Every structure is written in structure tokens, then in C-alpha cells.
């Protein structure tokens, strides 16, 4: 079912629940995957994924179709994720470094994160990126999202996103080779 068909069904009160269920099924893995790579912990990612879709439900009627539906959902997901990470830092008076170290420790401890040593090292290298650059890296590297759509999600120009991704790759390779 196309996004437009989903939106049409959502607009009809009789088929709203059905449409929303289909929408969640269509995008849940992508949304969860993006959030999980950012926060590492499964239960945090689970909460944030649910919060994201609850916000989608609350605001889908106001979606005007200026962007693609899934970039709009990604935008909500990334905002939820950044808010979560900021709150976590503020609540425990933690610096960025401390939060990143905590997430790094979760990579080692989490049985749900797969991968050999080099993959494990790659995840730790990604965690050393600033949060927004980390999001850019995930969307480009794992989701292979076009820069145009990434621009819709982040509200950043394509040129800036290209530069950010290029620098991210450079920093990751330096980490992989230097440690």
C-alpha cells in the first residue's frame, strides 16, 4: 500500500485504526533501527519507537505532504532521540563523553548487538561522533538514504550533509586504524 493510500485511509475515521496499524508495520523496523543505533539500549529504543508512533498518530492529520511520509516520521524519531539523550545528560548532569562511554559499555554488554571484533570496533567509532553527525552517518551508511531525503529529515542542506558524512567516515577510519 502506498503512503498516499495509507493517508487516505487514515483520514477516514472508520479505517483510521487499520491504516495506522499498516503504517506502523511498514515503518517500525526502520524507525526502531535508527533509534536503536543512536541509543544502543533495546528498552530505550523500544520506548522511543512507541513515543514516535504515538506522535505520528497525534499529528498525522496535520501532515501536509510537503515531504515524504517516511522522512517526516524519521524527523519525529530523530527529535525524540535527541530529546531523550539531552534529558538523560541533564538529569544525571552528565557530559557528552560520559554518555558516550556508557553507550560504549552497552555495546560490549548487549547480547542483542551482533558482530565480530571489527564490527564492535566500528560501533564504538560511530559513538565517538557528535550526535547529529552520528545520525547523518546512520542514515547514509546503513539506510543508504539519498542526501535529498536526509535533508528533509534533518533540515540541513545537502552540501552540509555530504561534508558531515565525509568527515564522519574519515574520523571512523582514523579510529579503526589508530586503536
Amino acid at each position, binding site marked *: 500500500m502506498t503512503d498516499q493510500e495509507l493517508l487516505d485511509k487514515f483520514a477516514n475515521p472508520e479505517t483510521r*485504526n487499520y491504516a*495506522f*496499524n499498516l503504517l*506502523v*508495520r511498514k515503518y*517500525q*523496523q526502520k524507525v*526502531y*533501527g535508527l533509534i*536503536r*543505533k543512536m541509543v544502543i539500549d*533495546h528498552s530505550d529504543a*523500544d520506548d522511543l*519507537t*512507541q513515543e514516535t*508512533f*504515538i506522535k505520528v*498518530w*497525534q499529528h498525522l492529520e496535520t501532515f501536509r505532504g510537503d515531504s515524504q511520509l517516511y522522512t517526516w516520521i524519521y524527523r519525529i524519531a530523530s527529535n525524540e532521540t535527541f530529546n531523550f539523550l539531552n534529558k538523560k545528560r541533564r538529569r544525571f548532569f552528565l557530559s557528552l563523553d560520559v554518555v558516550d562511554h556508557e553507550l560504549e559499555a552497552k555495546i560490549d554488554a548487549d547480547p*542483542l*548487538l*551482533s*558482530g565480530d571484533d*571489527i*564490527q564492535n570496533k*566500528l*560501533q564504538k567509532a560511530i559513538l565517538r561522533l557528535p550526535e547529529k553527525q552520528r545520525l547523518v552517518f546512520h542514515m547514509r*551508511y*546503513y539506510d543508504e538514504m539519498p542526501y535529498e531525503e536526509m535533508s528533509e529529515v534533518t533540515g540541513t542542506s545537502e552540501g552540509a550533509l555530504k561534508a558531515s558524512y565525509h568527515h564522519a*567516515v574519515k574520523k*571512523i*577510519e582514523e579510529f*579503526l*586504524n589508530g586503536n
Partner: protein
Amino acid sequence: MDNKKIRLADLPKINPVQTPDSYFEDLPQRIQARVHQQPAKVLKPHWTARHSWLSAGAAASVAILMYLSWPTRQDSIGVETLSQLHSEDIVQYLEHENVSVLDLSEVSKNKILIDSLSNNPLPAVRVSKKEILEQLSLEDIDDII
């Protein structure tokens, strides 16, 4: 040496994320359940007991400040009200306030003097140096200094 360097493009792209069994099968139902638990958005004043206490405190503070800063309105006692009093009552009141008739008389004289001075400035004082020195010899200089 460069050949040994790890390049991101050479690494297999593996999705590192795994989820508990049947996680994505259950998630839509859990989200739907939470969606329907959300209270309907009703615009209502967000008033709590804390707000009530804060408002009462603010109102009390304003009242106290007004009371303390309000000028004493003696002039609000009209002339007509005073005219209704007997002279004896006024004298009694002044005595109660430790103001004697003599004091009032002095005040009255001083007022006349001050009024006259303000209208007619003192004439140039013509006092000789000798007279000043004589006057000083009568005063206790230490007190003056």
C-alpha cells in the same frame, strides 16, 4: 603499509541491531493500545493546588505592601469633622499626646517669625571683629570646635 589500513568501504555492511523474538509482531498492538490510552486533548485550565497557594501568597504580599506604603491620610479628616469637636476635647487630646498649649504657642510664634523672614530677609549684619572676639571669649570654644 597503506594496503593494511582499514577502509570503511571494505568492511561488510552488517546491521548490528537484533531484537527479541517476535518483537516487531507485537509492537503494532502495543502502540495501538497506548494510542487509545492517551486521553483526548481537552483544553482546560491547568490549575493545581500549588497554583492556589502561590496566588494566595502573592495576593497577601501585595496587600501587605500596599498597607505599608499607603501614606497616612491625616488630611482625610475633613475640616468639617474637626469643627464638630469642642475646644476642650482638642486640648485634652493634645495633652494626651504631650503637646502643651505653651508648645503650640511657641510653634505659632516661630511660624510667624519664619514667615516674616521669608518675606523680609535679614538686613546686612554689621558686627565688628572686636565684638565677634568678645562673643567668642564668652563661648566655650571647645564645644564649637
